[in-house]
Structures are given as C-alpha cells and as structure tokens.
C-alpha cells in the first residue's frame, strides 16, 4: 500500500505515537521503507550550541532525543533511514517531503513546545496545507 513513508518526529510524546502508526503502515505492505526526519529548529540553535561542549556532543544530544523512536523502529525490524535537517520545522519538512517521492507523510498533531499547545500544532498545520503527498496526522 504505502511503500515510501516519511515520518516527521521531534522526540515528543506525539511523535512516539506517530511512530507506532507508521510502523503499522509499514508492516501492512511488503518492502516498505520509512524515512525518519528530524528538524533542528533555527531558533533553538543558540541554546543547543551553548549547552553542548563540541560538535560531537551536540550531535549526540540530538540523537538521544530520538533514541526511543529508533529503538521502536529497530525492535519492529523496520528498515529506516535517519535524516537530520536544519531550519524552521514546518517549511523544512514540507520542502523535504516534496523533494522526495513519498506515498505518505506521518506526523504528530503537535509537538514539544508548550506554547504550541495553545495554537494547536502550527507545524502539522503547515505540513498538511503545503505537502504534495497525503498526510497522516496522529493525535
């Protein structure tokens, strides 16, 4: 059914749930593949750099946020590729999705930021509006 799945994550509770759904979709068809994309927000770059001693630690810290997701994928024997991008999360995910040839994009309904809980997932909203492929928003 869906062979090329793009899973956009930010390490939040919601992205764990979307990972679960992505795995279900992955298992429902033969030789499906999941691309996991994580966007390091421009606006958090200063914080990230200040709080990491060097490049390696910075990389490791970002990776650590996604460990539970990678573990879920591994435990379920999902073939997946990991992409770390930089930018404004919404537009960056959209650009990445539209550049690739994806059958489906899976994303959590809202992310990590407390503020966004009030505005209701501005990232997922943007992605739904602007991505060319079907989008699966997981609540």
């Amino acid at each position, binding site marked *: 059914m869906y062979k090329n799945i793009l899973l956009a994550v930010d390490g939040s509770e919601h992205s764990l749930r979307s990972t679960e759904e992505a795995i279900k979709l992955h298992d429902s068809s033969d030789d499906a593949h999941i691309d996991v994309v994580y966007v*390091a927000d*421009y*606006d958090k*770059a*200063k*914080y*990230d*750099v*200040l*709080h*990491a*001693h*060097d*490049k390696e630690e*910075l990389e490791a810290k970002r990776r650590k946020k996604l460990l539970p997701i990678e573990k879920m994928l591994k435990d379920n024997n999902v073939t997946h590729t990991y992409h770390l991008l*930089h*930018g*404004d999360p919404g537009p960056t995910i959209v650009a990445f999705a539209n550049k690739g040839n994806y059958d489906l994009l899976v994303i959590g309904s809202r992310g990590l930021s407390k503020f966004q809980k009030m505005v209701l997932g501005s990232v997922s909203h943007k992605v739904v509006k602007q991505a060319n492929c079907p989008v699966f928003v997981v609540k």
Partner: protein
Amino acid sequence: MMTQMKEQWFGNVKGDVLSGIVVALALIPEAIAFSIIAGVDPMVGLYASFTIAIVTSIFGGRPAMISGATGAMALLMLPLVKDYGLDYLLAATIVTGIIQYIFGALKVARLMKFIPRAVMIGFVNALAILIFTSQIPHFIGISTMTYVFVIITLIIIYVLPRFTTAIPAPLVAIVVLTAIAIFGDYNLGTVGDLGEVTRQLPSFIIPNVPFTFETLGIILPYAIALSIVGLLESLLTATIVDDITDTESNKNKESRGQGLANVVTGFFGGMAGCAMIGQSIINVKSGGRKRLSSFVAGIFLMFLILALGNVVIQIPMPVLVGIMIMVSIGTFDWGSFKYLKNAPKSDAIIMLATVGIVVYTHDLSQGVLAGVVLSAIFFVAKISIVKVDTKTTADLTTYWVRGQVFFASVDSFTQGFDYSVENQIIDIDFNEAHIWDDSAVFAIDKVVIKLRKNHNTVNLKNLNTQSQELVEKLAIFDDPNAKPAAH
C-alpha cells in the same frame, strides 16, 4: 581556488541578495541603539556596521555570518567615551583590530575550547541583563506615552511574525510608530536628541589622539577587553552558523577577519564591533548562505543611511528601547534555569559568578576571566579528591584507590587508610588510580611504612605502567631502614 572563491561569493545569489536586504533593515535600529549605549552619535554605530559587514564578508572565515556594531562591545566602551571622547574610542578600535588579527595569526581560536560552557552561558546572560539595564534610563519615569510606545513596539515585534516574516517586525514597528509620533504630538525623545545623523559616506580619518605611550596606556586595557569579548562572541556565533548551515568554518581566519574589520572601522570613524548571533540567524533564516549576503547587508545599510538619514533622527526613543528589550530577551539563555537545576553545583556557581561579576563591573571580559579561573580552581578541587574503598575478610584487607593521586590529593589518599590494624595482609589496588608525582609516591611510602610498622604485609597491586615506573624510581618503602622523611 578560483572556483571555490566563486562558489563562496556567487553560489547563492538570489537568496543572498534578499537576505542581505532583510539584514540591513534589521541592522539599522540595532546599530543606532548600540551607539546610544556606547555614548556616541548614531553615525558611529551605523558606519561601524557598514564597514565591519563589508570587511568580514571579504576576509572573514565564516560566510553568511553577520558582524557589525554590537551591544557587548558598546557596553565595554562607554567609560572610555565618557572620560576621553570619541577619538580615543576610534584609536582603541584600531588597536583592538590589531590584537584580534594577532590572535588569529597565532591560532588562538583553539583556546576557545578551554572556556567552559558555564562561562559562555554566564556571558550571554550577563550581556542580556546589561543590555536591558542600559535601557532603563530611556524609559522609566519619563512619560506615560513613553511606556505606551515601548509596549506597542514589543507587541508588534512579537505578534507580527506570527502572520508574516517577509519584513523584519522591528522595522515595521519603527516605520509605523515613527509616523504616528511625527503626526501626533506626544513629546517623545527621539534619536535626533542624542546625536546627529549625517547623510555621508564615511571618510578616512586618523584619530586625533597624541601618539604617546600615555595614550596607549589609556586605550590598551579597553582594546584587550574588546578583543576578548569580540572574539568570544564572534566564535560563538560562527559555531552557531556552522550548526544551522551544516557547514564548517575557519575560526582563525574569522579572528583575522574580525581584526581587519576593526582596524578599517577605526580609521573610518566607526566603533569596534563583532559578530551578531541574532542578525546571523536572521540572515540564514532569510536564505543567506554565502559571503555575498553580508556584503549586500553592508552596502544596502549604507544606501539606507544615505536615503533615509532625515527620517532616522525622527525615530522615537521608546521604539528603540522596545527593540533593545527584544534583543535582550533574545540574547538571554532561557534554558539557564533548567541548567541551574540539573548541572553540577560547581558549574551552576561558575555561571552565576560570571553573571554577577559582569553585572557588578559592567565588563564582560572580567566576568569571563573570573569564570575561567574559578572553573580551573573547581577542577583542581574536584580531581584532588581520591576515594579509597575498603573490604575486610578474615585475613585480607583490600583497599581500592580511585582517582588522581598528586600533590593536591595526597591528603584524601592517606586519610583513607586504617593504621590501627595489626598482623594483617593488606592489598592496595590501584587499578582505577594514577600516580602523578613525587608527592604521590611519598604518600604511598608513608602509608606502606606506617602499615608495616604494625607487622602487616602490604602489597601494591595493579599500578598502571606509568605509575609503576614512578613508584619504582622514587619509592623507598622496600628499604628496611626507610623513614618517610627521606624524601
């Protein structure tokens, strides 16, 4: 070489030109406000932002990074300007540039590694606090309308980007509120009250100071402080730009570029500057990636000064205050509160001490130096604790030594043993320890000899190769007549 140059300049023309224009628009209010912080005419900051942006775009090591007049530097120079005037500031700017160039040539950038995170976090927080407090005289207790304008500015700055990010929100605040202020008569202070804006290109001038050692004595302390702070902020910004653009940069070349930029700036009537975190992020966000972006920012800034000089002096002060409050909020590391809770106590103390010293002295460089010294002391204190664990069975006592045994830690080493036991076999396991010097070997001697006095059999075990060599060379405990005093 040529193709690499071409790529660095013209690899992203459309994005760079657009982002350069956006940055130039965002630079104007900040350059003016930082001039006011430094106590000089707005032109001094505007010229500085022009020349620094241009020179660093050509000679810097980090393409797409934006440099110009900054708050960190402005705060440092205020006392010099107050006591001696603008010409001494220009001379100090040139000397700052020379020092920074030498630092770059000596490859000092790698020393940045030795500045602990806690100090850097303290640095940005102190900077944020100082920028904020520098604004207080411009808006507290002036008039009700002043408060109103500050608040409206902040609302525009924080709400507008939710709808559009095409034009920098601070600029919209300036245009709208300056227009309102011109048509309504609110009796607000303006930029014009604080200095002149001339619609001229900067020209080459030699600062009018006596060329004596006395002059050098006055400006050198400022120049050293400016060099350190400028490089610190520039290299931090370069690391951030490296990260968000996923590319590498040459930090030593950047130090030399910053140096050249300040030398040129001093000769063209501008104040010393450095890289700007906020503006660089705006540049990358707006699509800037190559050298052309900062070059266009500088050129377009100059064009705006020439075209809009008359309007600039009408900008109401409260609007600039609002923009500076935004800069201060953006500079502060809001993750610090979590950091204070989670980081080791010593790091938290270093961070707070750095902030405290800067706020007290108004000198960022002193805070950084104090922070570095304090972390060195904490480091020694931390590694000078040697842990000795013990396990006793019927006829064998084992001591496990963990840590670095050296002159500062021998006390905690020797205190870890029970010297009252008699007729025992005692193993001292050094598997997780390292013996560093004569004092450490002496301490081992002392322990072994004391224990043997009570007819115990003492064995040293698992010394690593280096420690073993040192012990064999220096230790005397196997000499039956030895007393520790022989060392």
